[in-house]
């Protein structure tokens, strides 16, 4: 893989009024790796991205390295990064081509070399034929690609993206998410992007750092995060898993709606979770665990059920197909012991 290795060493950020946006954090992004910073709003992910960009300085003691170069004190304009902003921040006084070429222009690259590189990047980002358009004549998806093309045209060492899809309509977002993933892979550039949407993070990133309250809770590949979450927050935020809370005795979990054989030996684990799609609906007669359907959302490929009376919080269940019980039905629940997540 080509690209720059990005390292944060002990980077923290405290804002005025002693607000700790980011606790001291170490992070390495390997050359060519695409890292997703995932978390709810206020978790410090955007602050971390802005520290990487040079738009914020870390608290003293923090260091940012691009390969072996310490760039902590290098201002953003000399850091050679590319950035895609949440609002895209395209220059309304310039055409598409001028926007894309601006980074080359300020570096003093002119004439045919600039034109060639602008054209190359524009066709890579599927912007052919839009060169002379004004920014306000573009659709949301086109704006996003112009922002990306503009950021990568000067061949930055690191590409940073702040919620690159959040300004788009929900209908457009899924398509453009997959498209962005393809383009980013094609660039083979070290990239970090911020998102609050776990499906977006999973679709685009090589590894995901799940953040909460100014710290990284877990950093792993998407499938590892999903199959093997290390904290309760990761389990519920990334997989939307259900927390099973009840009385634990001899490997059995006593819940409001019945008893569950967990197959867990020894001490009671702190957290037991079950993913939505790992629960099976059975006949309520003779089932060891029962509940009542109180919500049902049909989504074409699958149906989402909300079931009460099993444990404290309503249980969320995802079923394939449309053949699901109706609201008000009593159902039995089969929760396979080997699907439980516990730690």
């Amino acid at each position: 893989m080509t690209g720059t290795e990005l390292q944060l060493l002990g980077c923290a950020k405290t804002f005025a009024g002693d607000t700790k946006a980011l606790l001291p954090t170490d992070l390495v992004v390997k050359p060519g790796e695409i890292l997703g910073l995932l978390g709810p709003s206020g978790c410090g992910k955007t602050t971390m991205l802005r520290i990487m960009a040079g738009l914020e300085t870390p608290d003293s003691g923090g260091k940012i390295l691009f390969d072996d170069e310490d760039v902590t004190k290098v201002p953003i304009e000399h850091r050679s990064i590319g950035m895609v902003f949440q609002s895209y921040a395209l220059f309304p006084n310039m055409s598409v081509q001028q926007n894309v070429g601006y980074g080359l222009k300020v570096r003093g690259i002119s004439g045919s070399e600039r034109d060639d590189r602008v054209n190359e990047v524009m066709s890579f980002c599927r912007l052919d034929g839009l060169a002379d358009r004004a920014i306000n004549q573009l659709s949301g998806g086109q704006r996003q690609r112009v922002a990306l093309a503009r950021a990568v045209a000067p061949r930055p060492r690191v590409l940073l993206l702040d919620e690159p899809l959040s300004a788009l309509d929900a209908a457009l977002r899924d398509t453009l998410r997959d498209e962005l993933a393809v383009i980013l892979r094609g660039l083979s550039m070290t990239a970090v992007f911020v998102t609050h949407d776990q499906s977006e993070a999973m679709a685009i990133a090589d590894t995901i750092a799940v953040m909460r309250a100014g710290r990284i809770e877990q950093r792993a590949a998407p499938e590892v995060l999903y199959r093997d979450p290390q904290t309760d927050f990761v389990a519920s935020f990334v997989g939307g898993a259900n927390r099973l809370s009840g009385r634990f005795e001899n490997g059995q979990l006593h819940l409001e709606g019945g008893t569950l054989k967990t197959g867990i030996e020894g001490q009671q684990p702190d957290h037991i979770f079950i993913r939505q799609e790992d629960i099976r609906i059975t006949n309520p007669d003779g089932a060891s665990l029962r509940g009542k359907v109180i919500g049902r959302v049909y989504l074409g490929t699958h149906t989402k059920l909300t079931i009460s009376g099993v444990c404290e919080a309503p249980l969320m269940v995802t079923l394939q197909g449309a053949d699901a019980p109706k609201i008000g039905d009593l159902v039995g629940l089969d929760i396979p012991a080997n699907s439980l997540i516990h730690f």
Partner: protein
Amino acid sequence: MSRRTAFAIQFAVTLLACAFLLVPAILSILAGVTVNYFQGILASGVTLKWVGQVWELYSDTIWRSMGIAFGCLIITAIIGIPAAYGLNRFPGRLSRIVEEFVSLPLSIPGLALALALLQLYGTIKGFRLSFWFILVGHVLYTLPFMIRSVLAVFSTIDLQSLEEGAASLGASSWQRFKDIALPNAWPGILAGALTVVTLSIGEFNLTWMLHTPLTKTLPVGLADSYASMRLEIASAYTLVFFVMIVPLLAAMLWASNRAQSIGKPS
């Protein structure tokens, strides 16, 4: 009441209001081209003689007014655009105070402002007797309009994000000002510039206090002609003033419309 009657009444009221505003102006302009106002335009006929006399008697005030307006524009642009940029760049309590402070001359009567200038600088002879003295007064009075007009545009375009975008692409602070801030603030600068020029050309209160017989401006000359000349000459003078100011006002309207539509789809 039927819709037709309602419309008719509204139409009549609108016409009446227009007439109330326009008839005096039209009468005044007509008086300026009437041979003898007391005999009436129909009896005595139409002439450009009075306009010619105005030119002879007062052309210096017209040139001076234009010169002061132009100088005022240059100075307010040089001070006002960077000031607005700075106020936008570093928002905070201090910026708010500065903004209010700059706007202070608007809430003080022009006469009081002039008095203050006279008290402070009146003894510096060369300055007091030159048109620069009036120019300083006009700059004090028009600067807030330039700053506010440019600030308004800056606040509609999310300049901070645009500048961060430019910085991420390697642009220095001067390049960001030149390539991003200035071109995007252009409609605001234009609107501000036209406001400054129009206000400066029409300013009377302050100028009346600050002028000397050798530094009369157009509105001061106008007052002078009303007081001491034939009504026809004063009216012809008004006509000249109209011809100068109306295109400026039209351009101002156009520029402020453009400023408001920035960022919206065309």
